[in-house]
């Protein structure tokens, strides 16, 4: 069952990511990215990250992608114009990418020490209670610093969004 779930959602994630690269219209890319994020949330669940899976759906697929879609609609962004690419890039791009991915997979597969297979339920430290305890003890200072980061981002967005820049 684990393997079936992994394969189904890995294929969905890779297909949606490839669609993001291929599509010329930004709204199609945004929908593909939402597909990638949803299937990654399922993979997080398989790896025992309940809290992260929920946050992935709520914050990433919910909030950030709504922001993207909102800006695409606000700007009335259409499909990008086809540009003349060099012959080398057109005919060599995809094969080189595939070769690179094959090499990368081989290197990861051969360099990683032999480890146990991933089983659902093999790690139960990703529950909200455990993550929250770490967040408010060992990672308290970085957690507080992120609040300053968010404040700076809000101010930057407000300043950049003003009428006269």
């Amino acid at each position, binding site marked *: 069952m684990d393997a079936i779930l992994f394969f189904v959602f890995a294929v969905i994630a890779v297909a949606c990511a490839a669609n993001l690269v291929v599509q010329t219209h930004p709204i199609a*890319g945004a929908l593909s990215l939402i597909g990638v994020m949803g299937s990654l949330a399922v993979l997080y669940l398989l*790896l025992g990250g309940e809290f992260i899976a929920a946050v992935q759906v709520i914050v990433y697929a919910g909030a950030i992608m709504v922001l993207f879609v909102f800006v695409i609609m606000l700007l009335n962004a259409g499909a990008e114009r086809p540009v003349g690419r060099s012959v080398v890039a057109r005919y060599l791009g995809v094969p080189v990418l595939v070769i690179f991915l094959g090499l990368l997979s081989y290197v990861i597969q051969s360099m990683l020490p032999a480890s146990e297979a991933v089983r659902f339920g093999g790690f139960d430290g990703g529950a909200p209670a455990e*993550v929250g305890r770490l967040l408010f003890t060992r990672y308290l200072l970085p957690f507080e610093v992120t609040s300053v980061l968010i404040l700076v981002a809000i101010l930057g967005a407000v300043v950049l969004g003003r009428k006269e820049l």
Partner: protein
Amino acid sequence: MNAVPLSWYLILSAVLFSLGVAGFLVRRNIITVFMSIELMLNAVNLSFVTFSYQFKQADGHIFTFFVMVVAAAEAAVGLAIILALVRTRRTLEVDEVNLLKF
């Protein structure tokens, strides 16, 4: 075969990251380029969670959480920059924004 080895998750993460890089280089629309960056961040998050499983510690989940916070801040500021860009230059094509190009 009932379970998949850990390295397959890492390979999936590498594939998604490479596709993000390809989208970043190939696409001309600045919003799609921005979404490719988000795809790369997601791929790195998958690596974090995978290693968190490997070491049986939740620290990787904390880092994923922080990456999400940074991505949210980045999306807010980046989309505001895109809005300002469209307001001043009237274009979404990255090739036409070449004022600093020598």
